[in-house]
């Protein structure tokens, strides 16, 4: 059967280990699976190549960073983004098409937003790419909803104790992106330059945008 590898070799804690034997086991398993599915006529290996290439080279947080930089620079775009994220991002023209129900949530001095998917790994792939391992991990998924300040500390972020923390659990097909606060000292910066301050984590809510000194 599929899951006959019990991992009862002394370290069965909840960590995503990828030791050598599992790697080779997985390489063999995936190769067998791909071969069978291709021979059955269900999949085209060339399509798999194209999917992997797209996620390695085209889709990623640089798209979200451009969206945030535009929202910082253009008040009308920011309003549109907060009103209907999918429509606003589509109008920006960075993507061929944007899936429905992308929701942008704005950080302010009063409220900090953080995104999680406690049940699986829902994440706004189109604007942020594939989620990092930590986003899909048990520590993040378990703690984000009851100890977000502790999670922020793991990322080296400390917010004022009076700041409201709002956690969005992505339990349906809506997808969330955080619009971080624009750093001080960036007046007059171009969108391209502003985009260099926008980190992936700042759009998940586990980080803040870089300040101009950090970026330099």
């Amino acid at each position, binding site marked *: 059967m599929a899951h006959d590898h019990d991992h009862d070799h002394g370290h069965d804690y909840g960590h995503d280990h990828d030791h050598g034997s599992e790697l080779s086991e*997985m*390489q063999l398993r995936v190769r*067998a699976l791909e071969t069978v599915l291709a021979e059955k006529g269900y*999949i085209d290996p060339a*399509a798999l190549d194209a999917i992997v290439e*797209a996620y390695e080279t085209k889709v990623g947080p640089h798209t979200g960073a451009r969206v945030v930089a535009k929202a910082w620079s253009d008040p009308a775009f920011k309003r549109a983004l907060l009103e209907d994220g999918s429509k606003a991002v589509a109008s920006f023209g960075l993507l*061929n098409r944007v899936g429905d129900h992308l929701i942008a949530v704005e950080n302010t001095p009063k409220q900090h937003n953080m995104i999680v998917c406690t049940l699986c790994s829902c994440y706004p792939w189109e604007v942020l790419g594939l989620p*990092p391992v930590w986003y899909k991990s048990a*520590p993040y998924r378990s703690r984000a909803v009851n100890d977000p300040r502790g999670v922020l500390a793991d990322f080296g972020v400390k917010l004022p104790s009076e700041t*409201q923390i709002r956690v969005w659990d992505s339990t349906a097909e809506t997808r969330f992106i955080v619009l971080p606060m624009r750093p001080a000292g960036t007046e007059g910066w171009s969108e391209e330059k502003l985009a260099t301050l926008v980190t992936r984590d700042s759009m998940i809510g586990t980080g803040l945008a870089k300040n101009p000194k950090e970026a330099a």
Partner: protein
Amino acid sequence: MDGIHDMGGMHGFGKVEPEKDEPVFHAPWEGRTLALNRAMGYTGVWTIDQTRAGIEALPPQVYLSSSYYRKWELRLENMIVALGLAGADELKAGHALRPGKTLKRKLNAADVANTLSRGSFARPAQTPARFKPGDRVRTKNIHPATHTRLPRYARDKVGVVEAIRGSHVYPDTVAIGEGENPQWLYTVLFDGRELWGDATDPTLKVSIEAFEPYLVAA
């Protein structure tokens, strides 16, 4: 189902450990696994909620001890065998031993660019929305053994409807082959103390995306 996947609020998993300069994939098989799942999903043999249920069906000890893409790979093998798309003997042999079934469609390299956007899960409403923003609602105390998107930590809790997100495919029925059965979807906001008790950080608020059948008026 009340499975190990439903992790919100659990203790003991330790610190979050971000990886500096994390690669998109940590090994080539991870990318192949993602792509295989995507290409098989494209054929229309299952829905996204059926695939989520497939992950949730992994034994808890396997779930916890497997990396993310290992779970995807095991799920894919299980679903392919369960639907008779290939036999366990073929996966073991590493080659097809019998002809394949005829599927609705097949993903070609030229069409991949169009599959990078998410599909839409919005569907025409069957009824008018029962709740509106500002309404107080209580989530139901339900424990279905099958797929649901109402997390355990947010059951039997009082919150406020913050937004109506439209009418969507209902995961709880589509995952068990009982149809899309569209339902209204709401953002429901809870005070942290309602979820976790009085000792909780008073600045915490948590929202879930809740389908109408999960809610009653409060």
